[in-house]
């Protein structure tokens, strides 16, 4: 494994987000990437009168830019991330967060980018598995 990012065209935001979503969800101890106001509000623009069907419609889904629990900023091929997690109580949340950082760093490299800071916030610790 090379320490350098693979050469070639780096991926865009959306692809990196998708790769992260995939790899982070597979970590034992991660229950889910936690939706926050930022990522969800785009989907629920209108919750009041007659707005109920809006956020479930496919258009609204694809129009949303934020992905649950992942915030990405890319400057000069350096990717800075904030990851928000719900973790399983049977794992130490700090250890789970450290694994998430490592996995994220590897994923950024696989995407042809350089890892900047990877900050992890634990927003929920739960006893159930989902």
């Amino acid at each position, binding site marked *: 494994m090379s320490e350098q990012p693979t050469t070639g065209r780096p991926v865009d935001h959306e692809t990196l987000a998708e790769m992260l979503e995939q790899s982070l969800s597979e970590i034992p101890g991660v229950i889910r990437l936690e939706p926050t106001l930022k990522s969800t509000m785009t989907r629920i623009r209108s*919750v*009041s009168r007659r707005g*109920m069907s809006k956020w479930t419609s496919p258009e609204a889904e694809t129009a949303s830019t934020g992905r649950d629990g992942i915030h990405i900023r890319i400057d000069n091929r350096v990717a800075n991330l904030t990851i928000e997690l719900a973790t399983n109580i049977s794992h130490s949340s700090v250890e789970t967060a450290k694994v998430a950082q490592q996995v994220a760093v590897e994923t950024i490299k696989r995407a042809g980018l350089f890892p900047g800071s990877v900050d992890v916030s634990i927003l929920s610790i739960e006893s159930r598995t989902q």
Partner: protein
Amino acid sequence: MAGADDGSVQPLVGLDEITVISRAQDGDLDAFEQLVDVYQGRIFRLAYRMLNNRPDAEDIVQETMIAAWRQLPVLVTPAAFSGWIYRVCTNECLDLLRRRRSHQETSWGEGEQEPQSARMRSPAPAVAAADPAATAEMSAQMDGLADVLATITPEQRACWLLREMHGHSYQRIAEMLQISEASVRGRIARARGQLAEGMNSWR
């Protein structure tokens, strides 16, 4: 008279309601979901009987519960939650009816209610009573009452529903609607008089 509201008691998985409300105040989603389970049916029935329109009643439930979620952290006494939520629901219904009325004054043609055929008729009770004819008769009478209910003023209807369908005391209703107990008493007596009369001619 049934106690505070209805027979569809869904126990808060063995917890007292104050505990569940306290947790929801701290932002506990599971606790809040339990409150939604307990209250959504009650306030839907109130809103539906107030508005005679299912989508509107569903909107009211949604707005009321979301308002509850936002207000819970600042609610000082957890025990006040139930009264608070009925108050918000009732006021939302009255506001909507006022908007409908002012809308009707400016534009013709749009009926206040859904067409008769689209409205819900009382289905026969699931458990067949000994006398099917009596059951059908009572079912028809309930439909009649629902129709007559739509003819009294929204303020009277709100008081009557809170008292007769939801089991709240005059004093509690007065607190919810922020009017005097005498007004509540007057509205309910007036509602009963008009409903009785309406039912009579309906028969």
